[in-house]
């Protein structure tokens, strides 16, 4: 089997995913187009070599519908022979694109491919595309569906994370993100989003709040208590009958924020380096995606990571840095506890609690962020994992070359 190499990774800054966010005025396809331009320019890329574009995107309606990946390549001025495909694996979509791209390269069917994701949550409202998941009785009733926030609270209840535990983690995320921002650690990958005149609309992650404190967060009301009381708590108890109630600890301050953004990762074979003179930055060691219990939904990163580690012949101790998507604070706490890893190795530059979670893009963004920090610290192995709606987990392990 061939190796799949990461040649470059770029992303837009993350805007607040609401109408008051900076990127609200930018149609999602423009986010991708500007990144495609950046990849071309940064790498002096002969775009004729690009054999496909894979983008993850959750809310594929309106302007995010109709295969936005193909339209983005075309609109960016890539040659007509560059196709595109858009996929949806919920929060894992961005990383799934990378893994699929790697699989194409590893199997020898493609030499150069661009993978990533896009999500404008300010323009395509979360949930606007519906789905039988939570609406159709024949699916949701036997499936014991509960909203993700209640699922995160269920994790906290089962594993005994208090409100203070999750709030403290959230504060850490903001502090780490703010420090990274100050140190310019994100600048390697960030491509500022510009308007038609070349004016910069946004050049930094908009959601980070360095001033966040545990005391401040303590004032926020649990966000999922009302919906839990309306019936979903009891649905959770029917799947986890050893509990007598669900403790609601999550709120907007310790959960990932709505965000707008896009990210791209350029992946290719060794031949591409020979052909173009580009230098690979890392290789994909292994990846895995698994299904997990759908009610609790967010515990998948543990089994997907174990699977990816096994496939790569590595143990947890071999990994230098982890990126565990901060969908909710409890997800990360649970992952660290189960995998037995120290907090010093996890999300060292903050995560989605501070930075936001543009669903379809996050996986690709986080992988780029991991690679940047491995280079910064001159470390070798990194693991990127995300919990996934509906009960899944995804993991990708990379190694610098």
């Amino acid at each position: 089997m061939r190796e799949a190499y990461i040649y470059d990774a770029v992303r837009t800054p993350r805007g607040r995913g609401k109408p008051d966010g900076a990127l609200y005025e930018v149609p999602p396809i423009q986010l991708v187009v500007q990144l495609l331009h950046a990849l071309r320019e940064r790498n002096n890329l002969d775009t004729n070599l690009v054999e496909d574009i894979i983008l993850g995107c959750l809310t594929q309606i309106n302007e995010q519908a109709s295969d936005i990946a193909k339209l983005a390549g075309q609109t960016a001025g890539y040659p007509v022979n560059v196709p595109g495909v858009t996929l949806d694996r919920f929060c894992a979509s961005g990383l799934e694109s990378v893994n699929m791209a790697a699989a194409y390269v590893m199997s020898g069917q493609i030499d150069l491919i661009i993978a990533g994701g896009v999500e404008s949550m300010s323009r395509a409202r979360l949930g606007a595309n519906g789905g039988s998941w939570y609406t159709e009785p024949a699916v949701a009733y036997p499936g014991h569906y509960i909203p993700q926030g209640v699922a995160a609270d269920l994790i906290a209840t089962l594993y005994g994370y208090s409100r203070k535990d999750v709030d403290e983690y959230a504060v850490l995320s903001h502090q780490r993100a703010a420090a990274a921002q100050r140190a310019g650690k994100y600048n390697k990958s960030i491509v500022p989003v510009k308007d038609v005149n070349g004016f910069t609309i946004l050049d930094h992650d908009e959601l980070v709040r360095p001033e966040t404190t545990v005391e401040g967060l303590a004032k926020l009301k649990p966000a999922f208590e009302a919906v839990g009381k309306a019936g979903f708590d009891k649905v959770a108890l029917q799947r986890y009958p050893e509990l007598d109630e669900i403790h609601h600890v999550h709120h907007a301050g310790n959960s990932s924020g709505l965000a707008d953004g896009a990210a791209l990762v350029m992946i290719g074979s060794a031949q591409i380096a020979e052909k173009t003179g580009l230098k690979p930055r890392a290789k994909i060691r292994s990846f895995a995606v698994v299904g997990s219990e759908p009610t609790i939904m967010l515990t998948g990163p543990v089994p997907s990571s174990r699977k990816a580690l096994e496939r790569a012949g590595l143990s947890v101790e071999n990994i230098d840095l982890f990126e565990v998507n901060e969908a909710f604070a409890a997800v990360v706490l649970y992952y660290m506890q189960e995998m037995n890893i120290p907090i010093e190795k996890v999300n060292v530059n903050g995560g989605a609690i501070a930075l936001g979670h543009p669903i379809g893009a996050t996986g690709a963004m986080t992988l780029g962020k991991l690679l940047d920090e491995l280079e910064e610290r001159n470390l070798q192995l990194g693991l990127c994992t995300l919990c996934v709606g509906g009960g899944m987990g995804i993991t990708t392990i990379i190694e610098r070359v």
Partner: protein
Amino acid sequence: MFKYSLDIKDQVAVISFDHQGKPLNYFDSETLSLLEQILALAINTEDKGIILTSLSQNAFTTQNYEVLFKYTKEQLWESSKALQKVLRKLETCGKPVVAALNASTLGIGLEFALAAHYRIAYDSSQLQIGFPDIQLGILPLAGGANRLARKIGITASLPYLLEAQIATAVEAKEVGIIDQLVPDKTDILAAAKAWILNQPTSMQPWDHKNYKIPGGEVLSPQGIQLFSTTIASLRSKTWGNNEGAYAMLRSLYESLQMPPDRAFDVERRYFIYSLTHPNTYNLYHSLVKGKEKLVKLASQYCSKEKGSIKQVGIIGAGSIGASLAYCCAKAGIKVLLQDLNKELSEKGRNYTHELLYRQLIANKISQEKYLEIIQRIEIAEGYKGFENCEIVIETVFEEVSLKRQILKELSSFCSPQTVIISNTAALTYLELQQAVINSQSYLITHFFSPIEQTTLVEIATNDQVSNSTLARAIKFCQAIEKIPLVLPTAIPFFTFHLLLAYMQEGACLLEEGFPAALIENAAHLAGFENGPLATIDKFGLEQLTSILKQTTLNQAVTESFNSVIEKMYSAGRLGKKLGKGFYDYPETELPKLSPELKKLFPATQNSSAAPIVKQRLLLSVVIAALNRWNNQEKDSLWQADIASILGAGFPAFTGGVFNFVSRYGNNYFIESCNNLQQTYGNRFAVPQLFNLISN
């Protein structure tokens, strides 16, 4: 069955329903063809419109389901299609159709009414409207659910379609099921005629081109939100055990996205699915047939008993006494209530006060009614006035010596004709009976607390008790709307044995390290109304241990059970009455399992143990029933089934303890018992009676 007549003066056709007191089988081919003929007649003549009305009290009510259980799925599909066509034809025939509802309109009757273009009823709280059979898991079959939801909106229709809520005529008018109310029954036909002569619409809203479901389509943002939360609340309320409501919700979601004709087909698919689901037959077997048979049996006992019960004496104003006083007063019976002192008696009467006050605030009763009922309860001093009571019931603490003392006093004070009753869950009959002078007029009841919320009462007698005593006791139970189950002499207190086995198993599980929440939740998941620990709380440790100590039952309980009781005693957690048992009972909030249990009973098992907990709880009750029901008549097993459901909270959808065994099969039962016996001991041995029911 149906009659066609023509109002010649006004050129209005009248189709009258008349079933002569019997529920009709609308799937019968003769019935269907008669309906078709009459409809054709009404449509083809020069009439200006059609009135549907009823000539008898229950003509607009239920379909005969009994016969439908014998149909194959294919037969159900064909017959329901024919009926659906009739109703569809009615609403699309081009003539205005009005339903003149002069009687309660339930089930199939409501389906006809909804297929009309306009519904007129008279202003009465007696006139009921709804789909009661949904309780059994039997769904509307000819488009009724669709028409209701399309008429009043999905949200408004859900209580009627998922919970079988019944509306009075006034409520039905408020939500829009009924279009017009007239003051009196006799005005309906005239109003119906007037509506037709006014040249109204003859098209259903849902047949208009731009029709939208009021309040939002299924896949509108409102609809998505509605279905998502309804799915959760249905599961949350029913613990996933209501197949009928689940099928109804599926049917609504799928069919309401389509135009009527296709939608009605989908509705019928779910009707057939739900009617042929084993749970539906089980519910029918126990809650309809079983109840009917029990009521009939009770009536046979008291067919010769003349006269009604006017005054009842109650000794003991605790939870049972207070609740009984309320039921009597509500039923128009005067009550003399007595306890140790006036304060306690007042406290007992206060129970009625509180219940009535809540009804008054909710506008369920009038001020006059409130006063009338409360004034029926009089606080007695000593036994003064008890000589005028037809029945005297003592409901004092479960202690033989106390009860004997009271019985002694009572029987010397009351006249020999007075029926004296002890209410007890399980104390030994003879010991109590020997305390009364006239054992002919003494028997035992076992009411379930709170009485106003239950339907069953067990009656224990022996051969010394006179027929007229039993008859009068039964009359009394009927008067307060309870269904008496006269237990065979050899097996008094049947349900207590079931409850005891259930509570004991729950306590054993706790002692073995299963978390309290798991035990209670698994019980609900299995379909029990109350968890075993909540059941112990309800009895209270004092009552429970008192009963056990004074009977031979003490020998039957396990060490683990005793150990749990001891621990709870020393923790001062005696039960609901004292505000803390396994649960804490805060005054303003719902009961919660006490955090202290985690210290008293350290948990070692997790959620993967739920299936075994469910199985142990179910089988412990079934085995107790088999061991107890040593009556050799196979014909009496149905009584045990209904008693287990109504008295011991056994899951109704199983059809009762014995039906449960036949439903899952003998092999499953024997195998499960054997496995449990190996691990948990001989209390899970296959009982001897099993051979009787398994043949």
